[in-house]
């Protein structure tokens, strides 16, 4: 309460002069006791008045400081009590207006960001739909891989930016297939050597397609490296183990699961139990063991959820 101390000192100083003059006059008039009593009473009255005034001045300012700190911490909309009509009252009133306006602008910005994110996701889905149109056997595959990748990421405790990269990366992991001839994509017999090398270009083609898109920067590794293997035997870069970006390891596992559980030109859909056995064999050879375990946990939860829903119906 530095302000209170200053006001008190000022008031006492202002009261001391007349109190002293009064005291001297009374003392000269031969009433030293009355002189002392009057001077003391004058000073005490001044001190009381100053204390009350200082409290009225400093209290609202303390409220305003608290309010300003709250706003600095992003708690927009915080209102302070109005201390009545004075310049300090005006300050509190204007402060409350500022706080409300900040809250309103903040909400408006949040709404715009959500709209922008929605628009981006729709554009990415549109791009993913272009691959679906080319390769009808994989219809819905990209969306399912994206959803499963996000679930695995959540199971592994990934942050929001990584989950976003998994969603975009899952949707677009096969975007490079736009550069692969349809005849190859629809082939039901095993591919020849040269055909395999054309097919294996799709992760690099996909990465080149989205390379300039700032918003998909985090998803880029998932597109380029989703065919790398944990043991280093994958393509296009032959990365190994933790050298493969995590988002790519996750999309790889989700991609493998979805490819095995949906029917393809070269194989019918497999039963989930059988796919789980296959995944077990791929653990630590193709699939990151930690990602494999997270995928099983997600599948386990999905199955239990589905049983629960059926039970309820």
């Amino acid at each position: 309460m530095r302000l209170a101390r200053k006001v008190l000192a000022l008031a006492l100083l202002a009261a001391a002069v007349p109190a002293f003059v009064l005291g001297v006059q009374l003392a000269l008039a031969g009433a030293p006791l009355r002189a002392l009593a009057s001077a003391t009473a004058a000073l005490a009255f001044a001190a009381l008045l100053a204390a009350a005034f200082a409290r009225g001045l400093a209290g609202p300012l303390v409220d305003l400081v608290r309010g300003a700190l709250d706003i600095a911490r992003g708690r927009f909309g915080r209102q302070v009590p109005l201390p009545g009509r004075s310049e300090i009252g005006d300050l509190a009133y204007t402060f409350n207006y500022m706080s409300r306006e900040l809250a309103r602008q903040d909400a408006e910005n949040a709404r715009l960001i959500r709209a922008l994110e929605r628009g981006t996701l729709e554009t990415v889905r549109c791009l993913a739909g272009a691959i679906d149109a080319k390769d009808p056997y994989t219809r819905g595959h990209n969306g399912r891989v994206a959803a499963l990748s996000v679930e695995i990421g959540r199971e592994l405790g990934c942050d929001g930016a990584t989950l976003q990269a998994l969603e975009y990366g899952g949707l677009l992991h096969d975007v490079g297939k736009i550069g692969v001839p349809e005849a190859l994509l629809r082939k039901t017999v095993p591919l020849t050597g040269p055909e395999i090398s054309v097919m294996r270009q799709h992760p690099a083609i996909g990465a080149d397609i989205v390379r300039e898109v700032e918003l998909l920067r985090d998803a880029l590794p998932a597109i380029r490296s989703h065919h790398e293997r944990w043991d280093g035997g994958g393509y296009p870069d032959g990365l190994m183990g933790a050298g493969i970006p995590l988002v790519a390891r996750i999309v790889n596992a989700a991609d493998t699961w979805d490819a095995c559980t949906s029917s393809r030109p070269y194989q019918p859909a497999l039963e989930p139990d059988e796919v789980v056995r296959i995944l077990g064999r791929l653990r630590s050879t193709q699939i990151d063991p930690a990602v494999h375990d997270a995928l099983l946990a997600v599948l386990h939860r999905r199955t239990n959820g589905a049983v629960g829903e059926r039970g309820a119906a």
Partner: protein
Amino acid sequence: MRILIADDDRLVRTLLADVLTGLGHEVVAAADGAEAVELSQREHPDAVVLDFLMPRLSGVDALARMRQGGRRVPAVLLTAISGPSVRDATGPDAPDVILEKPFDAKAVARALERALRAP
């Protein structure tokens, strides 16, 4: 005359509308600064009575937009904070008259008259 009034407080809007209608004016009302700007472009009021601190756009900012292109818009600015602080804060977009809240019917009539007479 057609007068545009703008205040986020419904009570103030009702009071102003009653007073101004009683004086024989036609009244259009807005609940915030942005709405006031929209209404002024559509209704071309002869004068405006704006609250200072309104949501979306303050009375001073709203007035600046209404006066864009050098249009003469007689304006009364209502304010719950003291007039001198507002006058210092408004700068070149100053309204013709600043009227402190709370006000009575006579004060509104006088303020509007002065705003209309101002050069």
